[in-house]
C-alpha cells in the first residue's frame, strides 16, 4: 500500500507516454485485444445460455414442437398464438398474473419503504433489524411456500386455530384448496418475501437523500409528511422507478409459489401465466404452444420496461 501511494504521485501522462514509446507493433495489438479478451469468457457464456435461448423461444413458438427424438416439428405459423388468445385458461392466468402485480407490488414497496425509513438512521441494534427484514429474501421458495401452506392448513393450521379462538369459527377452512383464499395466501407469502428486497434498495437510496435540505425544510416549518413528499421522495425517484420495474417483472412471472401451494388449482383457477406455461410444456408436452404463451408475456414485459426506461430518460434521472 505504501509503495502505491508514493508511485501514485508521478504524473500519469508521463508514465503512459514512456510505455507507448517503448511498445512495438505487437504490444499495440495485444493492448487493443485486451478488453475483448477480458469480456470474451462472460460474453460466450451469456451468448450461449441466455441470448441464444431467447431467439430460440420465439422460433419454437411458430412450430408444433415435439421433444421426442425423430418427431417431426411442423411449422404452424401463428396458430399457437391464436390458440393462446382463445384459451380460457390463458385468460384466467393472465388475469391472475395481473392481479398479482396490482396486489403485491404496491404493498411490497410501501412496507419496504416504511422499513427503510424506520432503519435509515442510526438506531440501537440497527444491523440486527436490517438483517432480520432482509432474511426472507434469501430463503428458498420451497421452504417458505410449505411453511405458509402449513400455517394455512385445514388441519392443525395456525390460521384456522386463530379464527377458531377469536371468532369462534369452528368450521375449518381449507385455505389453499379454494380460489380466492388460495390466491390470498400466495399473495401474503409473496409480499412477506418481497419486502426485504425493496427495503434494501430503498435503504441505499435514502442514504443519498440530502440531509441539509430536509433539515432546511423543517426549519422553514415544513411538517414531517411535507418533508417526505417534497424532499425525500423526489430524491429517491430513480430507486422507486427501478424497484417498480423489477418487482413488476418478477410478479408477472410468478411460478414457484403457485406450483408449490395450490398447483394452479382448483381447476386451473389460480394458475399464473408462467405456471400455466410450464404445465403446458412439461406436463402436456405442448412446447410450441407454451413458448407462444411465454413469448406474449415476454413481449408485454419488454414493452413495459422500454416505456419505463423511456419515461425515466425524459425525467433526466
Amino acid at each position: 500500500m505504501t509503495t502505491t501511494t508514493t508511485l501514485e504521485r508521478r504524473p500519469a501522462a508521463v508514465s503512459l507516454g514512456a510505455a507507448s514509446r517503448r511498445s512495438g507493433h505487437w504490444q499495440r495489438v495485444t493492448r487493443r485485444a485486451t478488453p475483448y479478451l477480458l469480456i470474451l469468457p462472460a460474453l460466450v457464456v451469456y451468448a450461449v445460455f441466455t441470448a441464444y435461448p431467447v431467439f430460440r423461444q420465439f422460433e419454437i413458438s411458430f412450430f408444433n414442437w415435439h421433444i421426442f427424438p425423430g418427431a417431426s416439428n411442423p411449422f404452424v405459423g401463428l396458430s399457437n398464438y391464436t390458440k393462446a388468445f382463445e384459451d380460457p385458461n390463458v385468460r384466467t392466468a393472465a388475469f391472475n398474473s395481473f392481479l398479482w402485480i396490482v396486489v403485491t407490488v404496491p404493498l411490497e414497496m410501501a412496507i419496504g419503504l416504511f422499513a427503510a425509513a424506520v432503519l435509515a438512521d442510526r438506531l440501537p441494534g440497527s444491523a440486527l433489524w436490517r438483517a432480520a427484514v432482509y432474511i426472507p429474501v434469501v430463503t428458498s421458495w420451497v421452504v417458505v411456500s410449505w411453511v405458509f401452506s402449513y400455517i394455512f392448513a385445514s388441519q392443525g393450521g395456525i390460521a384456522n386455530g386463530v379464527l377458531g379462538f377469536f371468532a369462534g369459527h369452528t368450521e375449518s377452512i381449507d385455505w389453499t384448496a379454494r380460489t380466492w383464499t388460495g390466491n390470498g395466501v400466495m399473495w401474503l407469502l409473496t409480499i412477506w418475501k418481497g419486502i426485504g428486497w425493496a427495503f434494501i434498495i430503498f435503504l441505499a437510496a435514502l442514504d443519498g437523500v440530502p440531509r441539509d435540505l430536509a433539515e432546511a425544510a423543517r426549519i422553514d416549518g415544513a411538517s414531517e409528511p411535507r418533508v417526505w413528499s417534497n424532499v425525500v421522495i423526489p430524491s429517491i425517484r430513480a430507486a422507486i422507478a427501478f424497484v417498480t420495474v423489477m418487482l413488476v417483472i418478477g410478479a408477472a412471472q410468478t411460478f414457484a409459489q403457485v406450483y408449490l401451494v395450490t398447483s394452479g388449482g382448483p381447476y386451473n383457477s389460480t394458475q399464473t401465466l408462467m405456471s400455466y406455461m410450464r404445465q403446458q410444456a412439461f406436463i402436456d408436452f405442448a412446447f410450441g404452444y407454451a413458448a407462444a404463451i411465454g413469448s406474449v408475456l415476454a413481449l408485454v414485459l419488454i414493452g413495459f420496461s422500454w416505456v419505463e426506461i423511456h419515461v425515466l430518460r425524459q425525467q433526466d434521472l
Partner: protein
Amino acid sequence: MAQRSKQNQSRASYRPGLYGTRPRTRLRLVLAIALALLSLGPLLYMLMLSFQSNGDIQGEVVLIPSHPTTSNYVQAWSENSFGHYFANSLFIAFATVVITVALASLAAFGFARYKFPGRELIFYTFLASLAIPNVLLLIPQYLLMDRLHLLDSLLGLVLLYTSSNLPFMVFLLRGFFAAIPREYEEAFRLDGASTLRVVLRLIAPLSLPAIALVSMFTFSAAWDEFPLALTMLDTPSKFTLPIGLSDFIGEHTTAWGQFFAGSVIATLPVVIVFLVTQRWSRSGVSLGGLR
C-alpha cells in the same frame, strides 16, 4: 471509550440524520422490532415446529413443542439422501459463485477501464438481459441442455445459473471498479504487472466489499433456485435441496416434522453467508452503480 463517543458526536454534527434534530429513536425502535418479528415470524415458527415430533404435529395446532425432540433432524439427515442433496447444492452454489465472480470481474474490468469499438453495444446487450423475462428461457434452455447432453447434470445447472447471474454482477462490479483511482493501476503497471495480475492483485483486493456482495447475491440465487432445477434434474441422486425437500411432502402422508428440520438445515447456510457478507460489505458499498 470517551474518545470514541466524541468521534461519534463530531460525525453526527457533520452529517445530520434523516430525521434532523428529532431522531424519534424510541418510536423507530419499537417499529423496528415489530418489522423484525413480522419478517422472522414464519421462520421462527418453522424452527419451533422442527423440534416437535411428527405425531404431535398432525391435526393439532402447535405453537410451542410439547415434547421437544431432535429426532426430526436425525431422521431428515439420514433419510431421503438428504446429505447428498446438501452436497449437491453446496457444489452448485460454490461453483456458480467462483465462475460468476471470475468472469464478471474480468468483464467488468474491461468495461470500466478500456475504450474500444463496440463497448456500449456489448455492455447494453448484457444489460438488456435484466429486462429479459425468465419466462423466455425455461423451454429453450431445456432444449439446449438436451442437445448439449447437460440435462440432469449439476454442471449444466452451474452454467445456467452463471449465465443468469452474470449481467447484473458485471453491472455492479463495473460501477465499483470505475470508482477506483486509475493512478493505482498505472503505478502497478510501471512495475511491469500484466492485466490479469492487476485484476487479481489490485482491483480484486480493493473491491472486496463489492465482491462479497456479488458473491452473496449469486450464492443465494444458486442455493434457492427452483424452476430450472425442477425442470432439468431427473435422477434423485442429483437433486438439489429445494427439489429434495419436496420429497418429505408426500401425496398422502406428509412428514412435516422432518420437512421443517430439513428446511432449517437448508436455510442456515444461506443465512450464514448473508450475515457474514453483510458485515464485510457494509464499508462503502451502496449497491454499486444503482445510485
